[in-house]
């Protein structure tokens, strides 16, 4: 749609489709058809920060996961991690922590499969300018039925893992303050072991598609949304990628640390969010750099760029290949997201394999309790980036403050 605004031509893309969430893009062109301004407007406002005030803390992990339909598990777990601290628990039982991790890797698998196969693959397989009638997952199913089946079945496997750990495929209840409400039965474990090798093989295949696409179209990738940036991610103590827990790391465009291994209870000393009038989404930035230049990338690309290594062999080999493209400097190509996302997809399946072989999942020690606290922060690496959940509770167990950078 083209109209005139402030003497300039206004092009609008509305709604933005094949993405998670709701948005629109506006582009203003001057009289020479030069782009004057481009904006992504996030058009939804819901007000969770205010309306969960007064709710009891144990409701929060179940309630706030309704922030998202694709990655509810991330919000469920980020809130549960904060509520662990609220009930005075610094360390979960091995069974609880591993069940939650299994839930999280199941989710990363399903979300990454959905993102790659259902949403993005039409662009990669048919081209950005392909006919709208075929540029979608149904078009992929018609032209590449095997691939479509793989995408659907990998997503299903991840969703089944979520169901087995959280009780339900979308908006489950598994994580509770201080632990988890079930373990994984032998039958459930065996159900997942049955198809595991198939998942690993398909994940390898998906990684290959994403890698080959990027390498073959490197010139396009360098022209398309190639820009340097800072990157933010949680990181394990030894520098490994860890999607569930760690300290905060930020690196600049050259890979140098801006801050590292930050205890995220102090996140507000490092990160702030700017309000701009034209979007309901706020704009997070690294405080030491400032609102103008402090913005940063998150998600698969940022995590692969920021970590020192990945602790599963196949994903680590893939990470080395990925980093070699940019001589081990942070990769600035937005199209590199696909490749890095599929590295994480394979990593998630490898992690699921590791966990399914762990007898702790059949443990019965599920919940611990400590001394009640009034305030806590929970962070997690959601499929598309770092989530910050910060809550205060009063002596009646009711939420009095919630801050969500999500």
């Amino acid at each position, binding site marked *: 749609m083209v109209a005139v605004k402030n003497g300039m031509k206004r092009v609008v893309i509305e709604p933005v489709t094949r993405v998670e969430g709701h948005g629109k893009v506006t582009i203003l062109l001057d009289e020479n058809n030069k782009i004057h301004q481009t904006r992504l407007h996030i058009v939804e406002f819901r007000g969770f920060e205010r309306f969960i005030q007064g709710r009891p803390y144990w409701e929060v992990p179940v309630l706030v996961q309704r922030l998202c339909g694709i990655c509810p598990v991330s919000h469920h777990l980020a809130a549960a991690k904060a509520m662990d601290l609220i009930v005075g628990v610094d360390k979960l039982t091995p069974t609880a922590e591993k069940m939650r991790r299994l839930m999280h890797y199941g989710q990363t698998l399903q979300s990454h499969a959905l993102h790659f196969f259902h949403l993005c693959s039409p662009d990669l397989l048919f081209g950005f300018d392909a006919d709208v009638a075929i540029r979608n997952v149904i078009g992929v199913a018609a032209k590449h039925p095997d691939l479509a*089946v793989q995408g659907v079945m990998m997503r299903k496997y991840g969703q089944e893992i979520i169901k087995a750990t959280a009780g339900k*495929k979308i908006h489950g209840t598994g994580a509770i303050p201080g632990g988890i409400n079930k373990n994984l039965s032998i039958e459930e474990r065996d159900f997942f072991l049955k198809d595991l090798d198939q998942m690993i093989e398909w994940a390898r295949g998906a990684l290959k598609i994403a890698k080959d696409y990027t390498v073959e179209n490197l010139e396009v990738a360098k022209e398309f949304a190639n820009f340097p940036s800072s990157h933010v991610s949680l990181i394990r103590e030894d520098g490994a990628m860890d999607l569930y827990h760690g300290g905060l790391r930020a690196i600049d465009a050259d890979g140098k640390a801006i801050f590292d291994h930050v205890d995220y209870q102090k996140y507000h000393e490092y990160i702030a969010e700017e*309000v701009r009038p034209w979007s309901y989404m706020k704009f997070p930035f690294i405080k030491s750099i400032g*609102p103008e230049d402090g913005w940063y990338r998150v998600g698969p690309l940022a995590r692969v760029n920021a970590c020192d290594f990945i602790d599963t062999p196949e994903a680590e080999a893939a990470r080395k290949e990925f980093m070699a493209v940019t001589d081990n400097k942070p990769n600035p190509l937005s199209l590199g997201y696909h490749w890095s996302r599929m590295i994480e997809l394979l990593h998630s399946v490898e992690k699921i394999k590791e966990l399914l072989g762990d007898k702790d999942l059949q443990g019965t020690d599920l919940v611990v309790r400590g001394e009640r606290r009034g305030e806590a922060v929970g962070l997690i690496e959601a499929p598309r980036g770092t989530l910050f959940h910060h809550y205060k509770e009063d002596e009646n167990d009711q939420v009095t403050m919630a801050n969500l950078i999500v």
Partner: protein
Amino acid sequence: MSILDIDERILKLVELIEFHKSPINDIKKFSERCAIGLIEGGCCNDENVHVLRDFRKNCDILISVGDCATMGGIPALRNNIPLQECLEEAYINGPTVYNPSGKIPDDEEVPLLLNKVYPCHEVVKIDYHLPGCPPPADTIWEALVALLTDKPVALPYELIKYD
């Protein structure tokens, strides 16, 4: 999103139907009449109302899918609180907010928020309601299959029970 949990049955479904305007393809506007419209989410801003009316105009049968569409759901928790308070909490009072101008987003490019969150049937006529947060994939599947095969939508208890 729950509809995708019909998993491989989606490949069967597309043999029977054609997706028109939807989040999984890039069709942005109705260009032909549709037999069935699925609506998820309630109405929290003027744009939602516009889209919902557009669906009513272009679809023979309109289905509210999920608790947000059928009764406002979790977002309707804000209905007990003045909208201004919700906005101030998010854009002014939050501990990490940086907002030197003290303004709340009000650009003409962002939709105008409604005072309350409204379920779809308070805005247009809705033909069927599928409750749940989300409704299980089987519920959506059974309803679609019934409508596509001209049978009454009769869902067993297991498919419409709640958490």
